């Protein structure tokens, strides 16, 4: 259990964020992610990519983000048994039995700072990139599915059959485990994840959790945000508002 310093990032960045909200300092950051990283440069710890999802804007029955993800990542295979199908992102409908309050939200890999999938992976195929994106290195994934046992969010899927229709930018295939990559192929080129870009309600905010001037940090400083299964202290990179 290292990186405990990260745990307090919201508290710390909140303070910085407030300082940074001097009028006029933060302009034109909303729609565009960070600029493209230069060729040959590795991802660094100076950034940590994350997402803030406003569930009050997320409409029940809308699954534009799910479709956008499927298109971007080439999740197009037909699987006879739907229980064996891959789902990188899914909509969960939630109802509070006490109050009858209902809401809906997209659930995907939460890109934990302390990911259990990475801890349990026997070969190191499950990995966290320096900028916080949790990925599967399919070159050394042996398909044991231990990470799927360990993930509290059911974020991972196992590819049960041979695939041929992959997106050239998004390799995925039989016998390996996969999950949301935060659209790493887009992020590295300075673009937003497909789901974030597609959301008609602008309910998903993507950004750098380490950057005190980023929209996501400023929003987190002003509104109550929640981590799903916060009791596990995984320090998730995806956070929710309005739960």
């Amino acid at each position, binding site marked *: 259990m290292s990186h405990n310093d990260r745990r307090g990032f919201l508290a710390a960045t909140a303070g910085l964020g407030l300082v940074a909200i001097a009028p006029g300092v933060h302009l034109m950051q909303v729609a565009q992610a960070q600029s493209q990283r230069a060729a040959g440069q590795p991802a660094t710890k100076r950034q940590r990519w994350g997402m803030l999802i406003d569930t009050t804007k997320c409409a029940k029955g809308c699954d534009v983000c799910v479709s956008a993800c499927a298109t971007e990542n080439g999740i197009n295979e037909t*699987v*006879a*048994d739907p*229980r*064996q*199908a*891959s*789902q990188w992102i*899914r*909509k*969960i*409908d*939630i*109802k*509070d*039995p*006490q109050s009858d309050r209902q809401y809906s939200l997209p*659930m995907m890999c939460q890109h934990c700072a302390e990911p*259990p999938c*990475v*801890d*349990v*992976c*026997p*070969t*190191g*195929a499950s990995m966290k990139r320096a900028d916080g994106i949790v990925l599967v290195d399919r070159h*050394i*994934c*042996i*398909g*044991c*599915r*231990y990470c*799927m*046992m*360990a*993930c*509290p*969010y*059911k974020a*991972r*899927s*196992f*590819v*049960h*059959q*041979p695939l041929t229709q992959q997106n050239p930018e998004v390799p995925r295939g*039989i*016998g*390996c*485990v996969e999950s949301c990559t935060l659209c790493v192929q887009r992020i590295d080129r300075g673009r937003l994840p497909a789901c974030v870009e597609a959301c008609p309600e602008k309910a998903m905010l993507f950004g750098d959790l380490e950057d005190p001037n980023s929209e996501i940090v400023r929003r987190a400083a002003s509104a109550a945000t929640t981590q*799903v*299964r916060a009791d*596990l202290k995984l320090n998730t990179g995806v956070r929710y508002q309005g*739960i």
Partner: protein
Amino acid sequence: MSLVPHSRAEERLFYVLAAVGGLVVAIGLAAALHMEHSGHVVTGMNNQVVWGMPHVFAIFLIVAASGVLNVASIGSVFGKTVYKKRAPLSGLLTLAMLAGGLFVLMLDLGRADRVIIAATHYNFTSVFAWNVFLYSGMFGIVAVYLWTLMERRMNPWSKPLGLTAFLWRLILTTGTGSIFGFLVARQAYQSAILAPMFIIMSFAWGLAVFLIVQATMFRWNQMTLHPTVLKRMKNLLGLFVAATLYFVAVYHLTNLYFARQASFEKFLLVDSEFAPMFWIGQVLIGGIVPLVLLYLPSLSMRCGSLMTAALLIVIGAFFTLYVFIIGGQAYPLELFPGMIVSSSFYDGQVAQYAPKLPEILLGLGGVGVAFLMTTVGVRVLKFLPEDDLTHLDQAAIHQGD
């Protein structure tokens, strides 16, 4: 080491058995190839129940493999002559079942063709990776241990090696239990009691397997088990079964104590398809009936009772693991405690799993591997436990046999 002379009938029986074992292994391999080629789509496993029947078989074989070594340990480490005579057979069974379990585990991998990566890339925080060490170490230690037992010049080394093997197997079963014990995400698993529970279970299951194999070998050789030996082994088996039941009770009672676990326990023990498997399969068949057979005075001193009890314990073991592995995964993950959730990915629903033929055949293939190795082993080398009937109660009399 001496080769054993065989009669013609024995010869024929051996080839029949070897052929049967070989066939089961071949079918298991074919099933694995089918899974490898078509993908796990041909199995009943899915993205909700990710570990299925192969893991039930594999974990049974691995846990029982470590448990069966106890017979040797009691002989070598604690110096009991009766058990010393049985140490070679016990070591052989350990190797055979460990090989069978790993056969299943490796061939079930999504990328079984890349299994070598498990040996070239280690992630040291992974309990699985520790187990790769523990299993391969176990093979080496037990193989050398067998050598010290069977090669007279090496006999003096059998005690330290027996001790090493004993300690190693304790760690190994702890490791196997910890595969589940460290899973914080799932309500069924995250518990420190799993490691000791697996050790106790391995004692019971291993001894049961040993007794079945021993009884079979004795029957073929027209030998009968000496009543003193029978009594000792039956009492030991009963003790292990009772201890297993105790641990199972503690595991579930502690779960019931925590409010957030209560609904899981209700699911497993009352509401689901796993409830009858638990009560009838695990508790009754695998626990209470064997205890009655082993301890009821009118039954307990019959060879048949011991054999039946051992068989029931093995059957109960499979129920135990099915309830534990499949039942533990079937209960929905609680992402939003107290809420009613639904999604296209079956959130909030009990996961369904129906094993299909390939995964069952693969599991049986692992049993076949263990069977084949044992059959060949007992034919080629001298593994039959031969008790010194006249001196059964005197220890350490056989220095130079």
